[in-house]
Structure formats: C-alpha cells, structure tokens
C-alpha cells in the first residue's frame, strides 16, 4: 500500500475518534498493513508536517493521551464568532429539568432531583443563567426550600402564549399505547380511534 493511503487511513482514524487517539490503537488497526520500510512514528511525523505546512485550518497535535486534530490557534477568534451567531442546543439533562419545572411548577430542587433521580444543581444554574427558569419563592417546608418556575423568556423561546399552552401530558400516552404504567395515575383522554385514512 502506498504511503499516502496509509497516512489517509490514520487521518480518518484520528478524525473519527471521540477522544485523542492513543498510538497503540492506531498500531492495532494498521497492523494488517505491510508497512515495508515505513515506521509508524515516521508516518505520524509526516502526517503532522502535512497539516502544519499546507493551507489547512487544522493541525495534528499529540496531547497527553494521544493524537487529535484541532483548529490552528489563529482560527479561534472566528470560531468564537460562530458561537455567538448560532443558536445553541440545550443538553438533554437541561431539557429534562426544564420540562419538569415547566410541567410541575412551582417545584423545589429536591423534588426535581427526586424525579430525575440525579443531582440537578448544575443544570438548574444553567437554566437560571439562561433566564429560562427563576426562583418564584420558598416553600412552607422545613428548611424553607426555594421553589422554581418558568419565566417570560421561557414562553418566548418556546413560542408559547402562556404556560397552559404546553402540550398535554396526556399526549405522552399517544406516543406509545403500550405504556400502561402511565395510565395508573393520570386521568385519561380517550385515545383517538384508529381511523383509516385514504389521504393522498
């Protein structure tokens, strides 16, 4: 196999890897290839040089745990700019916590933790920072815990007229009729009859 092809294989491995890629994994993958006169350290050096010299925005770095592509430092300012123009996605834990607050407000941190089964301190802070939830008071319980609710901004972000415009919890049951667990505690709307349609 010619050198460029082997270098491209290594490039693909590093690119696709979730973490900096340890040299031993690269070694394992290419162990089926006859390197001939070439050596892996030599190939890594050549690959690094290739990216360093050419008009690429990327560089190949050997960080503590392995090899990784990163953007060259001069491009950082452009990437920062990107993060300011592009809408961000809420992480899954943040979405879940937000959903709990939206549907169960006013709610204490302990109640959120209980429903999610994990500590929610970090996500609550994120949601407060993003002004999607706010402290709406304290609960008449020992320790007087803070209670949270959603904000005006929350309604704006999700294009809701008011908090009652949230999709019904009953809708969840439509997602899968197999989920009978849910039915125990909920008053039910009848499911829509499966009517055949000859639409289209």
């Amino acid at each position, binding site marked *: 196999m010619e050198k460029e092809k082997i270098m491209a294989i290594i490039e693909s491995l590093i690119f696709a890897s979730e973490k900096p890629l340890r040299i031993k994994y690269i070694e394992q993958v290419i162990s089926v290839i006859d390197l001939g006169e070439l050596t892996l350290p030599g190939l890594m050096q050549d690959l690094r040089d290739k990216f360093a010299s050419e008009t690429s925005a990327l560089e190949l770095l050997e960080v503590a745990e392995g090899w*990784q592509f990163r953007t060259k430092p001069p491009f950082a300012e452009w990437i920062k700019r990107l993060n300011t123009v592009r*809408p*961000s996605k809420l992480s899954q834990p943040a979405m879940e916590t937000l*959903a709990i607050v939206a549907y169960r407000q*006013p709610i204490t941190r302990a109640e959120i933790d209980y429903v999610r089964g994990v500590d929610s301190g970090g996500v609550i802070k994120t949601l407060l920072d993003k*002004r999607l939830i706010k402290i709406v008071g304290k609960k008449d319980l020992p320790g007087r815990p803070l209670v949270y609710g959603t904000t005006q901004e929350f309604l704006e972000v999700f294009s*809701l007229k008011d908090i009652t415009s949230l999709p019904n919890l009953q809708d969840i049951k439509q997602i899968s009729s197999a989920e009978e667990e849910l039915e125990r505690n909920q008053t039910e709307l009848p499911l829509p009859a499966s009517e055949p349609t000859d639409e289209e």
Partner: protein
Amino acid sequence: MISEQQDYRVKLEVFEGPLDLLLFLIKRNELDIYDIPISFITEQYLAYLGMMQVLNVELASEFLVIAATLLEIKARMLLPAPADQEEDMEDPRLELTNRLLEYQRFKDAALRMNNLTVLYRDAFPRGLHEEFETEDTSLNIDADVFDLLVAFKSILDRAKGEKIAYMTVERMSVAQRINDVMERISVAKSIVFDTLLSADYTRLDIVITLLAVLELLRLRMIRCEQKEPFGSIWLYVPE
C-alpha cells in the same frame, strides 16, 4: 400440505403483519396483485393463521381483522351484481389491492434508504472534543415545545416501576404572593408598599403579603427604603 406447513413454520417469525403475509403469499404463488384470486388467497391466509394457532403463537388482532376483510370481499364477489349497476360497480378487492401496493412501495423505500450513505456505517463525522464547547448564556435556543414534551416523557419512562408522585399544581399562597409582588415591582421598577395591599384584603392576605415582601428582602431580590420616619416604604429592584 405437509411441506407447505413446514415452510410456513420457518417463516413464522418473519411476518410483520397481515399485509406482509399477504404480499408474501401473492409473491410465492406468483399471483397478479391487480387480479388477486380471492378464494385462493383467503384459503392460504387462513391456513397460515391456523398454523399459528396450532403452534400456539399469539396472533396480533390485526391478522384477524384482515381475515375478516378477506372473507367479506370473497362474499361480495360471490354476490351477483345488480344488472343495472354492473358497469360502475367497484371491484371489492380494490381497497385491499391499493393497501398492498402502498405498503409494498414503502417496503421498497426502506430498502432504498438502506442503500444511502449511512452515518456511522459508511461515513464518520468528527469525534466530539469538548474544547469547542463554550459558555453561552444567550437566549438563542434551538428547541420547540415538543422537545420539552419528549424530554418529560423520557423522565417518566425512566421512573417507570417506581411510584411517581404526581403533585397537584397547587399554588402556595406565600409563593404566589411573592410572584405577584415581584411582577408588580419589575414592571413599575419601584412601588410603595401600601399599594400592594387592597382594601378588601383579609388579615391573612395582609400577613401573607408582608411575609412575601420580607422573604424577597431576605433573598435580596428587592430592596426597601424609607425616606423619613413613618414615611412610605418604597420597594424596588436592586441596580
């Protein structure tokens, strides 16, 4: 029949539903889908259902629904058409044929989709490296209300098995009052304490309002100022 039964048995797990089974029978017997011999196909179909019952396989109710449909079509085909309507009478098989064709189209579509370049099978994106994540407190968020609903559902799914406490959404009076007070102050920027109280308030209402204001002060969510002894108490949002 014996060999056929064995054949059925091999295929038992495979059929997704009655339409899938019908398509299989049509193909296997090289029938014309636009002119299905309904007696023949009904017989084959019922034989298959019989086999499943013998093998004690639980039948999805949909299989029986289609069996009934087949029998109904068969019966209608046997009835002589009224002489005057013979021309424009619809073929009783038409709806079934259309359903089968439609289903077949999507089976084909699924196959074609499978031939596309599939992520993580044929092509890989960049592995995720955290250094690109930045703190971002903008309200620029890419999500809709149904994302919320699905997020909520995933929690309920996880909580399955254990008792979920469905708390009634009941406003605590002090918390409610805190809300009201905060809202009024945010709108007006500053207000006089007395204006929070209305003449028709009960003693309890007044106590609750006072508690709410004290709570907000303690939380430093509002500040208060009294310019002179016995003067009006002004409440305002800090900064």
